[in-house]
């Protein structure tokens, strides 16, 4: 009966070897990960609501990020189609226009040049405006011939430099470049990026608060248990561990919900977005999260959940510690 009775040797016998300590550390992590998951599942509805709150906080910055990703795609499309239009002087004839086109094509920094004669310009103009009848009644063609140039370097500053050089050529009246709205789009994208970053920080804080509050309640519910295990020699790490896992699970669940809602939302918006893009002659589709994006989202949300739990438990442990 007393073969296991307390011995005089006392506690000195209980220091495990370092390998054993490592194994027991892993064992406790595994046990706590499972235990906290079970606790979450025991109250599925409230767990789901917490995860939903996290998901909602994650969706806005993640959605904005996706949209910006899409805008970056447009950006490169636009860069590829960045062109200059060189209007020739009124009265430059067909043969001379052809010579100027060749001269322009030979310029440094020009990838290719395409001549649009006055007549072709008129046809395009009529088609674009639908004013066929009115324009047809004009006695002669008021439009000059033009040459559309695709530059080697599509960046706004390089295009500006190129335009300056071309303006001095004989027979050239004016060089038009539509940079203003390109620049405006760039500024808009920058604004979006900053707003996205700000929102991400703000809503990240939101996730911390949601998880922190949930964990605070969990800690409160298990206060007696925390006191008891502290009394019998639990370290802070030991006490914290199950709550950190709960926070991480909440974060992971929230991230998964956010990913799901984002892809559902993307499908829902896909048709109108494609129609809108088509009306501008652009091929634009909302990009999905992809593998890397999903991994980033889940990683961030899990980390946020863990961090929120850490803050909540640490604040509480300081109070509970029987000092």
């Amino acid at each position, binding site marked *: *009966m*007393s*073969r*296991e*009775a*307390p*011995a*005089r*040797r*006392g*506690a000195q*016998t*209980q220091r*495990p070897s370092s390998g*054993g*300590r490592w*194994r*027991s*550390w892993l*064992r*406790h992590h595994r046990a706590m990960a499972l235990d906290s998951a079970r606790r979450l599942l025991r109250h599925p509805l409230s767990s789901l609501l917490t995860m939903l709150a996290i998901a909602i906080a994650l969706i806005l910055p993640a959605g904005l990020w996706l949209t910006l990703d899409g805008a970056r795609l447009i950006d490169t499309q636009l860069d590829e189609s960045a062109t200059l239009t060189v209007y020739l002087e009124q009265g430059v004839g067909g043969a001379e226009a052809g010579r100027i086109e060749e001269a322009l094509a030979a310029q440094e920094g020009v990838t290719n040049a395409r001549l649009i004669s006055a007549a072709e310009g008129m046809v395009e103009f009529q088609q674009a405006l639908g004013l066929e009848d009115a324009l047809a009644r004009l006695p002669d063609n008021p439009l000059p011939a033009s040459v559309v140039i695709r530059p080697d370097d599509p960046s706004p500053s390089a295009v500006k430099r190129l335009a300056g050089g071309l303006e001095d050529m004989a027979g050239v009246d004016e060089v038009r470049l539509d940079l203003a709205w390109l620049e405006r789009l760039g500024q808009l994208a920058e604004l979006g990026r900053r707003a996205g970053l700000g929102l991400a920080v703000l809503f990240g804080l939101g996730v911390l608060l949601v998880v922190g509050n949930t964990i605070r309640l969990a800690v409160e519910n298990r206060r*007696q*248990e925390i*006191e*008891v*295990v*502290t*009394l*019998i*020699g*639990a*370290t802070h790490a*030991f006490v914290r561990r199950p709550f950190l896992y709960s926070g991480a699970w909440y974060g992971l669940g929230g991230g998964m919900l956010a990913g799901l809602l984002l892809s559902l939302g993307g499908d829902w918006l896909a048709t109108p977005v494609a129609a809108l893009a088509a009306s501008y002659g652009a091929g634009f589709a909302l990009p999905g999260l992809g593998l890397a994006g999903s991994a980033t989202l889940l990683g961030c949300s899990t980390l946020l959940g863990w961090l929120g739990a850490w803050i909540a438990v640490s604040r509480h442990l300081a109070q509970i510690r*029987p*000092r």
Partner: protein
Amino acid sequence: MIAFEHVGKRYGGRFDALAHLDFRVRRGEMVFLTGHSGAGKSSLLRLLMRLERPSRGRILVAGHDIDRLHHSQVPFYRRQIGVVFQDHQLLFDRSIYHNVALPLEIQGAEPREAARRARAALDKVGLLHREKALPIELSGGEQQRVGIARAVVNKPALLLADEPTGNLDPQLSADIMSLFEDFHRIGTTVMVASHDLALIARLRHRTLRLHEGRLVADEEVS
């Protein structure tokens, strides 16, 4: 094993709960701590568990000044002490077995070894057959025995108990006390706070009597 050197404890900067405590407890000794309610018994035990720190003097346990422990060392210090509480402090959401095995789980003991030791401790207090029960299904005396099993499952060198028989009838109280005597007999240093004077007198162990925070009697029994 334990040495109090001019220990005082003051709460809230004005009230001396303990003052001028100076005594030693030898390794393997069994000591009762008595005194009226509010005399400072619990405060003394809380100092030993390092739940409180002395306002003056020092407390040596196994030769170490426990006030000098870094707070990260405190959990490891507590693992060497078994503590029994008047309200047993069992966790009601888990079985008797898991309550008793809790200190081993905290220390990261190997599960099979932990199971062996937890069952042995339950066997010692005569509750092995109830290992699967929940604390709520047990009587007060049985719950207290579970608390004792949990306190000794580590084989601590020092066993502290604060009014372990406070809520029990005389027969159950005697049973509990004889359990403590068993541990004393195999070499554990035991310190039991109690105001059950009749029971203490019958058991004939050294008794420290507190009155308003001061040690007023130290009665050795040969």
